[in-house]
């Protein structure tokens, strides 16, 4: 087959990212003469530029519809491996913004000195290649391989500090992930067996006309596929690796896991749902709804009593995933992408702030943040804002409206019970974040945190704050991502 111009356009972003990855690796490996600072800066800038190019590209093409790697079929729509459409643009936007944020958080003096710079950025870009492919994938082979391309570099990143904690964290994430991959592949094999195809369009078409016995297998297969993603996004009960891994990884990598890796998982699941693997009214959606309810409840409840900042963020991110799964369960892509966008921005911000504190107070306890509104007002206000957005209360209107959209999706999807669970969880979640906010406001602090914050960190946290403010004032920008 020959690749058409459309194909090239559609995979331009992953392609550029991949090329950028190799370039970064080569620069770092062969430009030994430069100082560490210079090399790091160049690598950061190059990586950022590549991602930025991707963002610009996505922005320029946001309204296009570009099926790529297609194969005409005798009956039914053409089978494509990758489709660039507004939803893809929205997801890529979120993923790339997340990647860009992580790159910013990994600038010189921010990234732990133990981590090899070239490999770090290479792996990061590789993961982004996988993530973007996954978000645009329309066949199961691409989906599963894309997912692997997100996952394997992530585990390498987790262990990249090559210390005791990192290796344990990576092992946990790795084992859970490969098990989930195996489960998912098993499911895919059944899906293939039942429908005879790996293309989502065709599968969705053929799923409708199955006899009951086949339907049962198809359901189990779909369940296994969903479970694979559930591992990835750490939905309860496939979540337990997450807190340990988050704590064990370097903070920047944790941010990466929380933002890019998780968004990729959500994107994959969303693709499955909207393309019809889990059509409206199917049991799979019910499964996702149950997962959503259990996930948000467990995540928020467990976060209630955490005393370490990263662990609290870890559990709260589980809770947030629950909220993400709720609109997913009814197939409301707009609400999901909007939620994801807001989540990505403020999570990056929160991890940025946490990274600053953690660099100087490695214990990472919530009590380290005591009295920060006085001692570090800028950072504290930013962190409070991020937390409030996560909680979904004004002034964090971005969080409020994305939660609102989630509620609306669930109500429109006639899942009243899930809406009630969500309402309860809004309350529990608020309790979680308020504990932290209260620490920040506590005065007088006996040992207030006050340091000379690194310039890149200041810049990044300011950027995240600005972005969060913008999407709070104009929440429609969030939902414009996927229309």
């Amino acid at each position, binding site marked *: 087959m020959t690749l058409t111009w459309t194909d090239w356009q559609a995979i331009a972003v992953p392609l550029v990212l991949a090329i950028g990855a190799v370039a970064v690796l080569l620069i770092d490996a062969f430009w030994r003469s430069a100082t560490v600072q210079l090399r790091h800066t160049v690598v950061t800038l190059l990586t950022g530029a590549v991602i930025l190019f991707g963002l610009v590209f996505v922005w320029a093409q946001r309204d296009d519809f570009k099926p790529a790697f297609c194969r005409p079929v005798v009956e039914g729509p053409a089978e494509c491996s990758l489709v660039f459409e507004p939803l893809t643009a929205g997801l890529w936007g979120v993923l790339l913004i997340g990647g860009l944020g992580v790159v910013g958080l990994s600038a010189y003096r921010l990234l732990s000195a133990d981590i090899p710079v070239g490999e770090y950025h290479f792996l990061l870009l590789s993961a982004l290649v996988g993530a973007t492919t996954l978000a645009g994938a329309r066949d199961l082979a691409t989906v599963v391989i894309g997912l692997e391309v997100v996952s394997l570099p992530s585990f390498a990143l987790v262990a990249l500090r090559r210390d005791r904690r990192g290796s344990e964290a990576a*092992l*946990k994430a790795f*084992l*859970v992930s490969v*098990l*989930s991959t195996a*489960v998912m592949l098993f499911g895919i094999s059944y899906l293939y067996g039942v429908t005879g195809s790996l293309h989502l369009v065709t599968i969705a078409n053929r799923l409708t006309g199955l006899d009951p016995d086949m339907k049962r297998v198809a*359901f*189990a297969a779909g*369940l*296994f596929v969903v*479970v694979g993603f559930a*591992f990835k996004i750490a939905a*309860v*009960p*496939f979540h*337990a*690796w997450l*807190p*340990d891994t988050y704590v064990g990884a370097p903070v920047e990598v944790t941010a990466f896991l929380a933002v890019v890796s998780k968004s990729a998982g959500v994107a994959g699941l969303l693709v499955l749902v909207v393309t019809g693997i889990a059509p409206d009214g199917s*049991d*799979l959606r*019910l*499964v996702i709804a*149950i*997962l959503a309810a259990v996930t948000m409840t*467990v995540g928020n*409840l*467990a*976060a*209630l*009593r955490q005393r370490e900042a990263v662990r609290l963020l870890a559990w709260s991110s589980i809770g947030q995933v629950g909220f993400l799964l709720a609109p997913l369960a009814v197939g409301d892509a707009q609400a999901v992408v909007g939620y994801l966008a807001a989540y990505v921005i403020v999570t990056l911000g929160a991890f940025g702030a946490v990274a600053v504190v953690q660099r100087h107070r490695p214990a990472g306890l919530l009590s380290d943040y005591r009295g920060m509104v006085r001692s570090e007002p800028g950072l504290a206000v930013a962190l409070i804002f991020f937390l409030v957005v996560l909680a979904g209360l004004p002034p964090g209107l971005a969080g409020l409206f994305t939660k609102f959209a989630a509620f609306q999706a669930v109500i429109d999807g006639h899942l009243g019970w899930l809406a009630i669970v969500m309402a309860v969880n809004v309350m*529990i979640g608020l*309790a979680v974040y308020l504990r932290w906010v209260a620490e920040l406001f506590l005065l007088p602090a006996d040992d207030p945190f006050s340091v000379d914050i690194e310039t890149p960190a200041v810049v990044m946290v300011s950027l995240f704050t600005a972005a969060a403010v913008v999407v709070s004032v104009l929440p429609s920008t969030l939902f414009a991502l996927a229309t």
Partner: protein
Amino acid sequence: MIATVWRVAGVGFSLLLVLIAALLYGAAPEQASFLNSQIGDLTIGFAVRTDDLTVLLLAVVGVVATCVQVYSLSYLHERASSYHALVTLFTAAMATVVVSDSLFLLLIGWEVMGACSYLLISHYWERRDARSGAVKAFLMTRLADVGFLFGIFVLGVGAGTFRISELDPARISPGVLTAGTLLLLVGVVGKSAQVPLQTWLPDAMPGPSPVSALIHAATMVAAGVFLIARLYDVFSASSTTMTVLAIIACVTMLFAALCAMAAVEVKRVLAWSTVSQLAIMFSALSLGTREGRHAALFHLVTHAAFKGLLFLCAGVLLHQVGSAAFVVLRRYTRRGVLRNRLRVTFLTMTVGLAALAGVPGFAGFFSKDTVLEAAWDHAHHDGSVIGWVVLASVGLTASLTAFYCARLWLWVFFRSPALAGAIGAFEVDDPMADLEDPDTSKLKDASWLMLGPLVLLAVGALGLGYVDGLHLNWAIALGSTVLVLFGVLPAYSLWSRGADPRPAVLERELGVDRAYHGIFVGPVRWLAKLSVLGDRDVIGAYVRAAGRSGTLASQGLRLLQTGNVQTYLTGAVVGVVALAILAGVIAR
């Protein structure tokens, strides 16, 4: 400085009322409404009116208030500014009631009076009895006022208006009329301390005596009588209400008179006598005739004069002697100084008691005769049972009244021949009785600022009986005189023997107060405790339990977080199986 301003304002305001009454005298009735708002079909707003009743009551209120304010100038020195301000407000509230043509304006005056009386009764707030008496007064009248308010609703909604002058009994259905008037009657009963809401009035006596005079003579308690007189058409249109009123009045007048016979404190005797006398007015009103209304109002006016006088006299005793309890006064009487040193007080009090007792020639005699006559007319000519009952009970009450007046007068001012200098009837339970005799050297009559009002009111108590024109029914006059004698003679007889039998049941005022305490106060306190505990241990428990279960769940989830990746994997696989089964079950 502020006190002076309020003193001047108080006296000035009272005089202004008198002046207004004088100006309005004889003027044609008028009404005016203002500040109205539309609520649905109803208009809620204010309205005032002037007519004979208004003028009469304004005059009474003005005169009594003037007397009280002037009297207070000398009587009271501490907290004078708040005192005078409140008395002025009190008077103004009564004036509002009197001139109001809107039920709501009337209610405002009605309840502001209640609040003022509460504040004035607790003027000596360092005294326990003043505090509790005040609270009791306010709460009981407030309870009654709820009924009053509902009565306003019933009548107002039934008639489509809250204007008194537009309330036409003919346009209100009988059921609504009865319900409305009965509910209004609840308010009246409370305000005028009729049975069964009588217990607050005697307990209100710890307030300053001038205030008692104001409350008992012209304002507060008289407002009930005024209200029924004002709404007489409406009330008399409901025979049920009138019957109830008659029963209440007859029971009250006898009950109160009996209580007065056993009271051992001048002000308490006077308080019960007020209840009794008000009941007489109500009984006259309950006749439902124009004569009855006239008689009631006539008695209201004379009563205002002599009861105001009596309370002010009691105030002099309190002010000069320090107490109005028989047991204290007796110690002075034993030495014979009270009558001589407080000569003006003695004389005016005598006049007042005579008027109260209905001694022929005094104002009370005439007004009471008018009541009897109206009852007689009603009973005799209309064949009304109510008339007979009223006649009988008023007659009986006249005797009892004469008895306790005579008892009071004799025991307070005169040495009992049987017990000259010895332990007397009231010393039995007085722990101070054997101690030194009081120092009487400084005892003297009060200043003329206080005595002036006494004299003025005494003139009224003497002369008001004649202003209505003398048209005595000689038979009734004779009969009532005999009844008075029947009352006075036993009192004299007992006094001369040095005996003052006070049946325990009467002294406890038939145990009503204690019963109320048991029935209402106790359970309410219990419920309050229950409510606090309920909030804390039931409703609050849910909230706390929610919080605690959240914490516990959090702890439990932490336990699941073993750090062992294989338990994580196991959990995940179990989750897969469970999800498959669960979804299968739900889908089924």
